[in-house]
């Protein structure tokens, strides 16, 4: 049931415990208690909203930064990753395989703000060897959901 609930709310966190119970053949109490457990175990870490900021009159830029670091003895990459993700500007941090070590996704109001962050905060950290910053020009799809207007239902209204 835990997995069923997680799959059901993965793309729609607005489903209520009552709706979930009906759709999954469970009871409202059971769903509520499982949701609570999942939150406590930090399996559900939050319920953010997917917003297409491009459609709002509000300047925002996103950058993806490739970071090469020197792992620290006994701590590996975790310590340096933590130092990076604690900044509010940082949206996501992933440890990568391949040509660089960390992907850091930054959101800022302007390109200058992002550039300042990289130059003043990120690059000077001791463990960081190099950074490469790529600005996002347009977002098409996020969290498995396209950021475009849903298309109209083109089916005939009645069919056998």
């Amino acid at each position: 049931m835990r997995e069923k609930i997680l799959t059901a709310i993965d793309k729609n966190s607005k489903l209520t415990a009552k709706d979930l119970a009906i759709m999954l053949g469970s009871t409202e109490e059971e769903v509520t208690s499982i949701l609570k457990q999942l939150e406590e175990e930090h399996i559900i870490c939050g319920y953010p909203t997917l917003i297409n900021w491009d459609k709002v009159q509000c300047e925002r830029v996103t950058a993806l930064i490739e970071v090469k670091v020197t792992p620290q003895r006994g701590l590996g990459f975790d310590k340096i990753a933590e130092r990076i993700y604690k900044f509010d500007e940082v949206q996501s941090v992933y440890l990568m395989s391949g040509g660089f070590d960390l992907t850091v996704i930054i959101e800022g109001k302007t390109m200058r703000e992002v550039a300042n962050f990289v130059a003043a905060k990120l690059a000077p950290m001791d463990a960081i060897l190099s950074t490469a910053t790529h600005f996002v020009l347009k977002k098409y799809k996020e969290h498995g959901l396209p950021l475009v207007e849903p298309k109209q239902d083109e089916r005939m209204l009645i069919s056998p």
Partner: protein
Amino acid sequence: MRNPLSRNVVNIQPSGIRKFFDIVSEMKDAISLGVGEPDFDTPWHIREEGIYSLEKGRTFYTSNSGLKELKIEICNYLYRRCDLQYNYSNEVLVTVGGSEAIDLALRAMVDPGDEVLVPQPSYVSYHPCALLAGAVPVVIELKEENNFKLTKQDLLSAITDKTKILILPFPNNPTGAIMDYDDLKDIVDIIIEKDLYVISDEIYSELTYGKRHVSIASFPGMRDRTIVINGFSKSYAMTGWRLGYAAGPALIIEQMTKIHQFAIMCAPTTSQYAAVEALRNGDSDVEMMRDAYDKRRKYLVHAIRNMGLSCFEPLGAFYVFPSIKGLNMSSDDFATRLLQEEKVAVVPGTAFGACGEGFLRISYAYSIDNLKVALERIERFVKKHK
């Protein structure tokens, strides 16, 4: 001038659904729960394969019975999912939708005067296709108290010495009923004893909930007297591609192929290439869609029962078939007034046979958000007229 029309054709009633369609299409901003096709787009990797085949210039006829690769994949699929073994070279025919296969099977098997058993409520085309083929359709009325299954007694009492064919439309549109292993086992002996042939329309075979679909052709002695009809429309959300198939003994498939060859030539080539991809790599898409339908099914049955309507639990397809017998309204009245008063379109049960009176077909091939809005309106309507 002489009358240009065939009496046989003129005497056939147009589909009841058509009448209702005309009313609905004049209604702006109506919410419809009336469609008989999936709300999902065809999975992208399948569409992409169709596009690729066009880019490669595969724009020619295929052989009459269909692309060899596709027929091989169909045989693999029928073996994998239904435990049925067919020879791709002469026991499979690729058709323009399952509906062409139904028409061909009837035309290939009946002579004037032969009786064809048509259980109803069911899909609209069996009865007229039997008439067009010159046969005599005999309706078997399925009953709600039997969960709309075909029982041994129903079958026995409809058989005469002229009966040749039984149409077996399960999982069923519009009721959502299925025939499981035990239900089929019950009627197999009679079919063999009375020497009947079966046209088993299994187009919704992938959409069953809780129980796997069982094909009647998998019973001992049934393979050689069954034409299995299936297709890509419902399971892979490919209605507009118009692609289905029939599988059965070579003796019958060869005659069906003959009609198909003269009337159609071959099924659309682009669709056939896309269908190969669907059968090779589409299992997870089917599973995803089945899962989504199942959630909506439970939601819809719950909501309708909460309104105080009795609703049999459908285990297949994507329809619920609630009873409105407590409301003192005919199915037609209910559907028409629901449309006028609340702007929600559902299909009256009578569109699927006279015994659909007192029922409605509500489709759940819609998003949950859409269903919620429509259900609120239906509830308001039911309360008002109770």
